[in-house]
């Protein structure tokens, strides 16, 4: 009986807590949005790939090659087009395959290695994977068509089952790289926003809590009445929250990375059955210095993000009267930062002015934009993003300072409920 009453009270406390209700709504909305983003990303990749033709380059024109291409054209409804070079083919059709000289001999030996190339304009793993899948379908088609073509040309059955291997490269803007390097790079580029998002998102929470806790501890008004500029208080809180976030990030990522460093090296079987060692891949292969091209931009993005999210957190924290309300306001902000990183993972990162401005505003995408701009040789987007990011830091910090100089920092936001209005009218 008593236990029932106690449980009822606990459940009521949850259900009457606006933060709890708000979190529930937020989770549902968030996952719907994320699912929508994932769907858009996959649909876009599928649609793009469905329209693709295949550019084929022939090094040596033999009867077998001609017959094979004829069969391929039949099975793909005329999507095979001939070009003079692999570069020309991939620039025109996004997917290019080179049939090497001595093809007929290789067929007789039972193993044929084809060179291929795919062109991508966005660091989107879904688009890239879709194009790789198309390449694999073509490889399968060639493998299955070869016995038919061989028997048609030579009038006998093919001596042995032919294994077709495809070594693919990627053309990203004007830069060519192996598909393994691109995969590694895209994983890196798409993971960075998530990592940065976690750090920046948690920083906003820390910053808001710094103000909210001070209010709860009732030391806030004493601090505000001291002969110090409010801007100094705001800056101190931004720096304080940032240091806390850096410590948190070091512990968090250290905890994640450490077990991997202790694991034995992994070997991976690729779809064309060749083996390679994962850790050997490096961005230096494509001419990007790991320090200036990866570590420094990530640090820059984190610092800019810490400053802007810290300012936003303090701004929100100064509007509320306790840490619970701060939590309500900060949860969406934290989730937005992390969600943006997640969205990039599925939508990819195209280089255009909108994305450049957006990455400047939210900062989370900045390190990825930095690398892609360098790769594509389009520094203008990077400059725009950094300028916007710095401007946002200044704007958010000024906003936080302005709010700190207003009554609202002491009084908090007063939400007028029907009950509160009734009390006010009674007072009058």
């Amino acid at each position, binding site marked *: 009986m008593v236990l029932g009453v106690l449980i009822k009270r606990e459940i009521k406390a949850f259900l009457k807590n606006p933060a709890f209700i708000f979190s529930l709504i937020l989770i549902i909305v968030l996952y719907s949005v994320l699912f929508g983003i994932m769907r858009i990303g996959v649909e876009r990749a599928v649609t793009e790939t469905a329209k693709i033709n295949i550019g084929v380059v022939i090094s040596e024109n033999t009867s077998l090659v001609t017959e094979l291409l004829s069969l391929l054209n039949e099975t793909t409804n005329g999507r095979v087009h001939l070009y003079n070079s692999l570069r020309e083919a991939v620039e025109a059709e996004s997917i290019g395959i080179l049939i090497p000289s001595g093809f007929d001999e290789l067929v007789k030996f039972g193993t044929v290695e084809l060179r291929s190339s795919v062109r991508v304009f966005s660091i989107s793993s879904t688009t890239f994977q879709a194009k790789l899948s198309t390449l694999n379908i073509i490889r399968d088609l060639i493998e299955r068509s070869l016995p038919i073509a061989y028997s048609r040309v030579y009038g006998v059955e093919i001596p042995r089952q032919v294994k077709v291997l495809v070594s693919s490269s990627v053309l990203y803007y004007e830069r060519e790289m192996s598909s393994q390097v691109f995969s590694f790079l895209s994983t890196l580029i798409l993971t960075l926003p998530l990592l940065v998002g976690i750090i920046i998102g948690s920083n906003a929470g820390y910053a808001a809590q710094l103000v909210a806790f001070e209010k709860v501890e009732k030391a806030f008004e*004493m601090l*505000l009445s001291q002969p*110090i500029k409010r801007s100094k208080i705001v800056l101190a809180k931004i720096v304080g929250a940032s240091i806390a976030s850096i410590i948190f990030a070091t512990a968090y990522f250290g905890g994640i990375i450490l077990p991997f460093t202790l694991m034995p090296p992994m070997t991976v079987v690729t779809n064309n059955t060749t083996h390679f060692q994962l850790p050997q891949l490096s961005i230096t292969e494509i001419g990007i210095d790991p320090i200036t091209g990866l570590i420094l931009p990530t640090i820059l993005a984190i610092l800019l993000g810490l400053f802007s999210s810290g300012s936003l957190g303090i701004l929100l924290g100064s509007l509320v009267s306790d840490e619970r309300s701060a939590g309500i306001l900060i949860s969406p902000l934290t989730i937005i930062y992390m969600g943006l990183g997640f969205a990039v993972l599925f939508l990819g990162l195209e280089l255009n002015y909108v994305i450049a401005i957006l990455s400047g505003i939210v900062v989370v995408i900045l390190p990825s934009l930095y690398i892609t701009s360098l790769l594509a040789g389009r520094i203008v987007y990077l400059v725009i993003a950094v300028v916007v990011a710095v401007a946002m830091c200044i704007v958010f910090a000024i906003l936080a300072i302005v709010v700190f100089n207003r009554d609202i920092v002491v009084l908090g936001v007063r939400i007028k409920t029907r009950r509160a209005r009734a009390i006010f009218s009674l007072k009058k």
Partner: protein
Amino acid sequence: MSFNHAVEVYNLTKIYGGGVIGVKELSFQVYPGEIYALIGPNGSGKTTTLRIIATLIKPTSGTVRVFNVNVVEEPLKVRELIAYLPEEAGAYRDLSGLDFIKFMLSLRFTGKRLEEAVGEAIEISGLDRDLKRPVKTYSKGMKRLLALSVVLASKPNLLILDEPTAGLDVERSLLVRDLIKKYNREHGVTVLLSSHNMLEVEYLAHKVGMLYQGKLIGEGSPVELKRKLGANNLEEVFVKLKNTR
């Protein structure tokens, strides 16, 4: 430099969002060296007035000057002249009492002056060994003494105290009152305080301003007010003034 008034409040009005009136056309002056008490029931505008004078919130209209410095135009300069003890002022829970004293006073003083101020605050607080304990282990009275020690050791020209003894037991209340009186008498600190404890005010204040629904309904020394209205104490004075409105 001598001033006619420590605090000058003219036609002060504060209207909050939603049209709620904090104070309305309030005017009063506090002379240097005086202990002036604003008294009235909850919601009468005491805290609003003190917060405006302490530069924490801005008035909707009217003028407020502290030692001739306008609180809206030069808030930083005003903050150098005042020390404010908010209602239910606490301290950072993660700090020890001593660290809290050092932190707060380091925002005002440096070097030898800081050391002296810290020493003075330690003495005022009377918390001795407890100062090394975290503030989160303190009782309400201990926290109040800690905060009061900081504002007194700041040696301001004007001490603004919002309900300085609210929620304290009799012994601690007496201690706080004695400290306020001592600093007023020995250091010439002007004190502006608020309270709804009229007995406390009678004991402490040279002059009293009675607030009701954001308006000043009576002003004078406790003796003067009691004589004028034929009342035995300030509580009776307040009730009579309120009823004659």
